[in-house]
Structure formats: C-alpha cells, structure tokens
C-alpha cells in the first residue's frame, strides 16, 4: 500500500481533462492537495489559476473550465450552490473528498438550471498523506473527557477513517484494543457503516487474505511519544515542529534568508529528504556532507567546461532564479541540521535522552532516581521546564508501582525549581490518562518497558541499533504488529469485528497459517514519526505484508503533553 500513489492517482483524476483551467479548493482540500502535488505539477496539467471557492473577489472568466476539489460540508455546499447560481466559468467539474449525501447532490442539481456541471465524482481523500505509509487527520482536542470522544471530532475521525479505507479499496476486518472505549466506539460505528456501504464495497477487489484495520489507543503506550527521537524526520518534528510537511523557522536565532524560514519537507518532492528522513543523527551528518560534495562537483564541472562556450545559454540560466533549486535544497537541509544541532546542545539532549532511555528500558529504580534528581537540580545543565516535566512523567509511569516510588519528592523538586504548577499537573494527568490500571495488560512480556527483541518480526530489527544507547527503546507497536501479522493477537484483548457485508461475502475467513497482507493501523490520540519509521522499515523487508499507519494527529513530546494536560 502506498498512500502517495493513491494521492497522486486522485490528483491525476482531478486535473486530467485537457484545457486551460482554474482549480477551486477549500481550506481542507488545499492542504490535502499540497501534500501530494506541487504547483508546477498542476501547471503541467494546465491549471493556471488556483483559488479558494470562498473567495468572492474572483474574476468572471467565461473562457476557463473550472475543476473543484472540495470537502463535504454544509458550508461548501452552500458556497457551491451560490457559485452555480451565478457561474463565473465556462463549465464545472465537481470532485468531493468523501461520501456525498444524496441531499447535497439534490441541492446542487436543483441550482444547476444553467447546466454548468458536467461531472460529479466522489474521491476518498479526507486525510493528510505525510509519507507513503503515514497519514494524519490533523485533529487535536479529540477528548470530551478521559477515554470519551468529543462528539464532533468523533464524526470527523469516523468520516476520515472511512475515506481512508475506501481510498485503499479495502473493506477491512476491524480489531481494536478492548480497554479503550474510544477505540471500541470508533470500531463499532465504522464496522456498522462498512456493513451499510455494500454499494461501494461491491466494487472493491476481493483478496484471499482479508485486510485488517487495527485501532489502537495512545494511552496504551505513553512512553514512545515522551522519548526524544534521534532520526531526521522525527527530530525535526520533536525540536522544530512539522505541520503539513512544513517547518516554520520563524524566531530561531540563526540568520536565515527569508526564503528559508518556511521549509517544505516532502519526501516525494525532495530526493535528499526522501533518502535521509529515517537516518539517525550521525548518519545524517555524513549524508549531508556527501550531498554537499556532490553539488560542489557538479557546479565545478558546469562552470569549467560546459557553460563557458555558450554565452547565450548562460544568459538564460542567470535570468531565472529557479535554477537555484538544487543549491536551495542544500541550504535548506544545512539550515535544518544546524538548527537541530543547536537545539540538542542548548537543551543538553544527549544527557536527557540517555536518562530517558534508561528509565524506559531498564528496571533500575535507584540509579534512575539518582540521575533524575541530578538532572532536575543541575546547575551545570540548565534544562528547560518542559523537559523536566517530561522526565518526571517518564519516571512516574515507569515506577508507578515501585515500592520505593519517590514521585511526591520529584514533584516538589519541580516546584522548587520554579516550574509553574499547571505544568507540573501534567504528571498527574498523565497517570490518570495512562497509568498502569489504564493500560492494556495483554501479557507481561509485551510490557511497554521491554527492550527484548525476541519475538519481533524481521524488519523491526533494522529499526534499533543495539549499540546505540539513545535508541534502545522499542515501541510497543512492534510487539503488537509482530503478533498481528501472524494473526496471533488474542481476541480477548483485541476483539474482532467483521461487518455484515464481509460476513456475506466471505463466510469462512480461515487464514490457514497465511500471514496478513494489508494492514491499516490507526492511533486514537495520535501517532509518532518514530512509529511511522519502524513501519517503513518493516515494509522494506517484508514483501508480503504492507502496513500504513496514522493517527488523529502526529505527536511530538510537547503536543502529546499538551493533549494530556488539557484532559479533564
């Protein structure tokens, strides 16, 4: 399964018709499309004008055909009805990014007495495609209270997850974590809707190995989003923040030229990023060095023997700033890596990360406690408040049941160190959200603190470097998937929902020892880039199993702690 290919196939559908045209979008679809296409790609399909449907100041251009790619909402339909009443363009093709209710179609048809619309299509792209195996719904505030959905966000999640499955042409068996009411509600509503969508499901190809959607709850592994990651994409998100595949460097002390403040990081448009987004920091430095050297070689060659003879061509080259693309890309990554390095040193992340890993992986209370106290009170390393709170969170979760637990003492140290009380609250909220009684205790060896690799599948091993003390921890997800792929997840902890349509279509679904083929993993409460990375490694090695992963959002430590803090 390759989400980028899916996304591109949709873009192709939207812009495929010949002719000079205008593309109308809305807030939601413009960010969706920017993740899978570029302006120049759209230009190649003769899209000369891109605008928002809601912009009232658009010119009337009767010579242009119009293609619309829109989300399905009351607001969009109202705007469309208005547009069709007073059309600005020659004709309209309407593409929606999810299921269109019949009532909407009727309203549009009613208004189209000028017969301007010559195509209406439902595409199923109601989600953000971040990597070829990572998607996000970009939702925060999904909670009403602990383990209960905010109703509005729930409906959005439901719709987006449905569109994801439809886009992949899958009618999956749904598995979910039994200790989560949020997962269970999502799973059962989704299963019901799938059962009702037989008109669509009929059109999907049938596979001998049925696809599976696994719905997980973030609370069952609070450790992974709390650890400092050391691979490129994860680090950029952790330390600088990635939104819509864009990094905003506004306010960083480095002197950056204006065109390097907002950086697009899209693996399908940036070859260097594509080959290094999963590299650890050490390998990354080597990789950028090679990249710079290659560039130097290229430019030297150009200047010495190829360009000199052609004055006219040189003239062309100089007149177009776009030729600087390559050097721009180098400065972009140089800038990012420099900034990462600055942040690492500023926050003493080597020391912090070492302790994090030790807490997460070893069972060594006294040593960890000592080191924690040292870091919290250190005069030598000035560690930022949020990092201190994070360390105490890790400690609190790890040693919650330890007879010698010193959490109250740690909390009072935080207070002494001048950490604001509301920030300190995060620790207790974290325990309420994700303490030992809240987590799924499916079996002892798959505890979230385990480091052992024994029953992991091939492909996961590549994700961890045993000799790298900063990357020892293994996300719980790996153990879950290792069982899931072999179809050995216990139904007691991971109930199975088979929707009505599937039951009819496939009365017996005996896997007879076959491994699962297509798997969609969804994290209620947010996924991490680290988890996306291990999925990528898994996919590279296992040719017969393909996994895509996503969540209500993609977390870094800060966004995760904020989410927990905001829980009532």
């Amino acid at each position, binding site marked *: 399964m390759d989400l980028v290919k*899916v996304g591109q196939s949709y873009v192709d559908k939207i812009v495929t018709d010949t002719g000079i045209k205008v593309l109308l979008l809305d807030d939601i679809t413009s960010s969706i499309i920017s993740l899978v296409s570029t302006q120049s790609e759209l230009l190649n399909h003769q899209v000369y004008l891109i605008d928002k449907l809601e912009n009232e100041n658009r010119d009337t251009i009767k010579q242009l055909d119009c293609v619309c790619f829109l989300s399905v909402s009351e607001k969009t339909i109202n705007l469309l009805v208005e547009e069709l009443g007073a059309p600005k363009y020659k004709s309209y093709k309407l593409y929606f990014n999810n299921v269109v209710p019949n009532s909407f179609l009727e309203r549009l*048809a009613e208004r189209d007495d000028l017969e301007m619309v010559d195509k209406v299509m439902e595409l199923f792209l109601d989600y953000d495609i971040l990597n070829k195996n990572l998607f996000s719904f970009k939702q925060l505030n999904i909670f009403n209270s602990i383990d209960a959905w905010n109703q509005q966000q729930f409906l959005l999640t439901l719709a987006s997850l449905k569109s994801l499955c439809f886009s992949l042409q899958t009618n999956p068996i749904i598995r979910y974590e039994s200790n989560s009411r949020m997962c269970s509600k999502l799973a059962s509503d989704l299963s019901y809707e799938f059962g009702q969508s037989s008109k669509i499901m009929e059109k999907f*190809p049938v596979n001998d190995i049925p696809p599976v959607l696994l719905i997980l709850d973030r609370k069952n592994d609070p450790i992974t989003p709390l650890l400092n990651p050391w691979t490129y994409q994860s680090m950029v998100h952790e330390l600088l923040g990635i939104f819509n595949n864009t990094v905003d460097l506004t306010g960083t002390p480095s002197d950056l030229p204006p065109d390097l403040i907002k950086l697009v990081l899209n693996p399908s448009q940036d070859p260097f990023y594509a080959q290094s987004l999963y590299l650890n920091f050490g390998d990354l430095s080597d990789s950028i060095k090679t990249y710079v050297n290659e560039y130097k070689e290229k430019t030297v060659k150009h200047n010495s023997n190829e360009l000199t003879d*052609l004055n*006219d061509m040189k003239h062309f080259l100089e007149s*177009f700033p776009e030729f600087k693309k390559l050097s721009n890309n180098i400065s972009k990554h140089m800038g990012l890596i420099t900034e990462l390095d600055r942040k690492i040193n500023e926050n003493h992340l080597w020391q912090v990360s070492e302790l994090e890993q030790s807490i997460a992986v070893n069972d060594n209370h006294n040593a960890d406690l000592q080191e924690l106290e040292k870091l919290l009170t250190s005069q030598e390393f000035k560690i930022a408040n949020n990092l201190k709170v994070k360390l105490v969170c890790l400690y609190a979760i790890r040693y919650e049941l330890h007879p010698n637990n010193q959490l109250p003492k740690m909390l009072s140290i935080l207070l002494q160190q001048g950490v604001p009380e509301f920030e300190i609250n995060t620790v207790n909220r974290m325990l309420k959200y994700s303490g030992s009684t809240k987590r799924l205790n499916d079996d002892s060896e798959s505890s979230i603190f385990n480091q052992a690799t*024994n029953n992991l599948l091939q492909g996961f*091993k590549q994700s961890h470097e045993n000799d790298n003390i900063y990357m020892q921890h293994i996300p719980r997800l790996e153990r879950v998937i290792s069982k899931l792929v072999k179809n050995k997840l216990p139904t007691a902890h991971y109930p199975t929902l088979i929707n009505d349509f599937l039951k009819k279509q496939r009365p017996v679904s005996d896997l007879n020892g076959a491994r699962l083929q297509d798997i969609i993993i969804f994290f209620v409460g947010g996924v991490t880039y680290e988890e996306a990375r291990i999925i990528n490694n898994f996919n590279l090695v296992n040719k017969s199993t393909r996994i895509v992963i996503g969540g209500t959002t993609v977390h870094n430590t800060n966004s995760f702690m904020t989410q927990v803090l905001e829980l009532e």
Partner: protein
Amino acid sequence: MIGRRVLGQVPNEGELSPTASPNGAESLSCPICNENMINLGQLNQHLDDTHTNNDPSESVNIGPYLEKDLKNWFRTKVVDRANSLHPLISSKLNTMDVVDNMGYFTISDSATSSAPNSTTNSRISSPGLETSEISRSHWKKPKGNDFCHLKECKRRLNIKNGIVNCRKCGFLFCNEHTYYRIKVNQTLQYDPLGGQFVRCCITCFTNKPFFNNFEGFALDDTKTFQELREKRLESDRLKTIVLEKRLRKIFAFVYDRDNPSKVNNSEVTNYVKQIIHWQTDNELNNCPLCFKQFGRFLMRKHHCRLCGEIRCDDGCSLDIPMNYLKQLFDQSPETNEQYDQNHPTEDDTIVFDKVSLRICKLCKNRVFHRRLFTQNRSSSTGIDDLLSTIRLVNIYKEKIHQLLPGFEEDLQRLQTIDSASNSNQILPTKELEDDEQFLKMLVEKRYKIMSVFNKIDKIAKGLKLTIDQNDTLLSLKKPLAEGMTIDQLKIARSIYMQLASFLQENMLKLQKVPNLTNKPSTENEGLSKLEIREYRDKLMVLQEQHYLINSMIDDSKKKRKFDDLKILDENLADIETEIQTISRKLGDDSF
C-alpha cells in the same frame, strides 16, 4: 539476514539421516494435532500447510542460545514424538522440503497417471484435507543441480537452502522465497474466495491481481446528478412557462393599447390581481424567503406581480422598470416566440420608464436566470491576451519536444565521430565529407531549436516585466497597471513559472553542444547562410525589444515610476549585451 527454517537445519547436525521410502506408510496421524493421514505425502503437505510457521523471520532475531533452545524444543516435541509414531516420519520431518519434492515422484507415480487412488480416497475419507486436490503435475522435477527460480536469488537449492516447488507455478525455489500463501482453485488459478491456501513463491504472491494497484477508489455520480437535475429542470420548466405566460399578459395589458404612456402602476396592479392569486396581507409575520420580521426596521410587505406572494423589499423582491423587463424578455436568444415584433421599441425608455413591475427573487430566477446569464457572457481583453499567450507557448513547447530528441541523437553520433577521429588520425576523404555535411546539418538544427527557445525566452521576459511591475504596485497597494486584475496577474505568474521551468529542464540538454558553434567558426568566419539568417532574425527581435523597453523607460520617467525604471534599465542592459554579442558574431554580415 535471511530466515532459515529451524526444521531444515536439523539434518546438519548429522544425527538423523534421511531415508525416504514412503511406501511403508500404514495409517498415520499428524504428530502435532493427531489428525489422520492417508499417506506420507499428505502428512507432509499437512505439516507444511498447517504447522510450518510460515515465517521467514521467526528465527531471525533469535540469538544463538535461543536458536539452540528452539532446536531442542523441536527435537523433543516434534521429532521424538514422530519417532515414536513411525520411524519414517522423523526423517520426513527433518528433511521436509527435500522429501516434499521427492513426494512429487511418489505421489505422482500413483496419482498423476490417472489420479485415481490416493487422492480421491483422501478426499472422500477426510474432507478437511483438501490439499490433495491441487494438482502437482506441473511441478518441476529437481535435477540435482538446481537453482532458485527467482532471478534475483538464483541460489543453489539443497537441503540447507531448501528445494521447494511453488504450488502455483510449479517452479523450484529456495525456502526463503516460498514462505508465502495464496488461494488457488483446482485449475491453479488465483481464487480469493473459492480457492484454498497453498504454499507459493514470492513472484506468484506479488503478481496477484490488484496487489500493486494503488489507484484511489472513486465513485462517479455524474449520472445520478444529471438525472436529478433533469427531473428538477422538468418541473421548473413547467413553472417557468406559467410565469412567462403571465408576464406576456401583463406586457399586452400595458403595450397593446393606443396610448401606453397613460398606464400607471396601480392600473397594472389591479390588472395583475385579476389574473393571479393575490396572497392575503395578514397571513404572514415574516418574509417567507429570508425570514426577516415584517414591521420592524421599516420592513414592509410587498407582493410579487408574477406569483402573487408576499416578499420583503430587502433583497427578496425588486421593482423593475417595465420597458427594461420587456427588453430583456424579448431580446434573449432563448425565447423563440418573440412577443409583439411590430411594436416600436426606440421610444421605450422615454415613454415607459415610470411604469414598473415588482418581481420576487424566485420568479426572477425562473424567468430571467438563463437570459441574464447569456447576456453576461462578455469577456475582458486582458484575459484573452493571456490565453493566447498560453496557446502560443504550448505550440513552441511542442515544437521543441519534436526537435530536441532528434538533435540529441545526432549529438551522440557526433561524439562517436569525435572519438573516432581522435583515435584514427587519417580518415578516408569520403567519410570526412560526410562528417562535414552532418556537422552542418547539426548546426542548422541547433539554430532552429535556439530560435524557438528565443521566442519562449522573449515571452517569459515580457511576462516577468509585467509581473514585477504589478508586484511593485501591489506592494504599494496601488491598482494594477493596464487594467490587469489580480486573477490575471496570477495567471501571468503561472505562465512565467511554467516557462522558466521549461527552459530550465530543456536548455540544459542543449548545453551538451558546446564546442559545436565555435569549432567551425571564429567570429563570422564559417557562419552558414542559415546561421546568418537566424542571427539576423534574433537581432531584429532584440532591437525591437530594445526599442520597446526604451519607450517604456521614457514612459516610466514621465510617470515617475522609479521602481520600474530599475528593472527596465537592467533589462535594457541585458538586451544590449546580447545585441553586441550577436553583432560581433555576424561581423560584416550584420546588415
């Protein structure tokens, strides 16, 4: 790291030697689940299909100690039990893959000849074991010197690596490349619902239909939409006809009299009340269209003269001069029967501007929507210019796409000639002449391409000028130059961007020509007639541009647009250098 099956490794210990003589099998049962088996071949396949952990990586991540433990586990749990059942089974288990393939001989010997005995029997006696239904007649026989059929693998097949037939395609593969399962039916076709799982190779697995299809699912609603629209339009048309009839009657009442100028609005209203249902005033508290409350903020009730219903005056109904209404109604190309052709229209504005008709939003849309729409189909010239630029550019680009590949091929030929002339110092005269001819043709081609590039470049530069000019104006929050709209500016930017990247992509290909132009010519010497012509053309274009920019500079000076001046000056300098370069190349031939 490559996964190796634990079972396949046991014989390496040298403790158990495979002795295959399957005929001795009596009644067997699976050592693991105790299911009854007809013969060894069947047990073999059963073990393979049901109990083999179909997992290349299972043992991969296990450290050396654990691996040993596992082997022990297998020996005690499986092998020992098997030994106690039947002396032969142990060897089967240990060399499963080998015997599996040897099973080809044994089973097919008895089964393929006419497939009567064991296979049919097993089907009857134990319906759960359908595996024997899948034919093995297509299995390739091992020749003792076999290699994995997978192109990328090709490893030698032996006890250690495994010798396994893919149940679907029948070729021989190593263990690692047959850890897959696929559902096939008796004709060996992939059958996702009706088939049964069999072991297969990676190629058969990944070639399953739809396996690599990542086209997003889409649902075409166009038909549904059209039907809905048709239904709606049908009923609309009927309503429209009624309204149009009424409107004609009203026009007739006003205009079909001797002195139409005497008619006033209250007469018209009285007439309308006779022909339509006039909604009673006290029926409503709110405007039925916008729900605003009547009586507050001067919201008064008004009657639409076409439908007779009550509307507010705040956007839901409008008083329209009768003559304007009639003009609009008559002139539309969509109304076939024109009302009252003979009536003189030239005095309408003078005579009738006092009489008007109040029409509500709904009725206006019903009767005039189409008419107004066709009338408004005007186009601004700015956009037409941009669109024709796009079309022109597309033609040029097409031309380059036609010319460039051939040119690149020729260049390759040139390189081979070059290397040939470098190695063999003496070439036959004939060939030399040919080469010269070829070179000449190449130069001609190059200039053809260059001239198209120049045209594109010219367009791009022109656009850049306009864009920069307007961007400056935008940043000063002034209206755009030459009546350009924001949308038009956006389109101009798009075209420019497209041209720039086109030049970037394709000009670099021309760079490979470097020495060509200078080889036959220093200065004008050696320029062909065609080259001279091309240069002259280019020169003319440049001089034209030069003139244009000069006049723009004058203009900007007059209007004190100093920001533009800077850009224009730069542009002028560029053009002047280029003119100089070309003039120098042309030398005496310049004009």
